[in-house]
């Protein structure tokens, strides 16, 4: 499940910084990462440390967007909490998808809308409350951000 802590919290990692010095090549062979990469960055993994971006041409993993780098960190290191504020609204459906597969905890410091993202179920850590509809989510989230 996707667990969200709203507002500032000590120890939430900055995804792009963590990614830059810690990513592993084998992560890019994961089909979910390939899907996220195509959807968000319009890019495709070619092997080694080569990614082909429709926009930028051949790029190394360090030039993926900060949002995608953070999503990859959240997915591949569920033992850590990352600051998902680096993720734009186009990452929302992927955060939920990761949460459907594994338990992850993220920090959000802005209101990320999850409208039209399919089956919705998250736990708000601040209130230790599981919610499954967008209205409840909005009311709780806006108390904190």
């Amino acid at each position, binding site marked *: 499940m996707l667990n969200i802590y709203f507002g500032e919290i000590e120890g939430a990692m900055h995804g792009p910084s963590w990614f830059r010095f810690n990513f592993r090549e084998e992560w890019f062979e994961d089909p979910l990462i390939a899907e996220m990469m195509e959807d968000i960055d319009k890019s495709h993994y070619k092997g080694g440390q080569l990614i082909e971006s*429709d926009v930028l041409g051949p790029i190394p993993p360090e030039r993926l967007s*900060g949002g995608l780098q953070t999503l990859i960190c959240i997915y591949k290191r569920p033992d850590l909490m990352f600051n998902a504020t680096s993720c734009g609204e186009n990452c929302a459906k992927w955060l939920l998808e990761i949460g459907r597969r594994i338990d992850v905890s993220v920090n959000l410091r802005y209101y990320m809308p999850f409208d039209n993202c399919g089956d919705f179920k998250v736990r708000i850590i601040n209130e230790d409350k599981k919610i499954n509809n967008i209205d409840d989510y909005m009311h709780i989230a806006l108390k904190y951000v």
Partner: protein
Amino acid sequence: MKNKHHIVVETERLKYEFDIRRNITVIQGDSATGKTTLVQLLETYSRYGKDSGVRLQSDVPCVVFGGDTSLWKVAMETYQNSIVFIDEDYSFIYSKEFADVIQGTSNYYVLITRQPLYNLPYSVKEIYGIRTTGKYHYPEKIYNEFYRI
């Protein structure tokens, strides 16, 4: 500093063209729209100038704050009549102290952040996203512009 400033940042493959109208401009929006790339281009230009292959058109200096966070105050007070770009994840921009310091400077500020800036009096009209115009397939040149959110 007053008035609108028209900025063009360009390489052989990328072009950003936009106006900065007020002392505080916020850029936010989806991931992978080119926010960080814009800052990296300006950073590269301020380090290597024209030799970098980045072309910058602006009637005032465009600078990027980067590096040691503890020096932000000195940096803001040192820049004068400039447009200061600050990439996301610098937490000092949310502080009351930052709001107080920049009110006393002559600069315009472009802040890249999704997090609300409760201490800063910025206009909702000056919140922008970046979008690509036209086709964007490598190796064609990519044109980016600001749009109001």
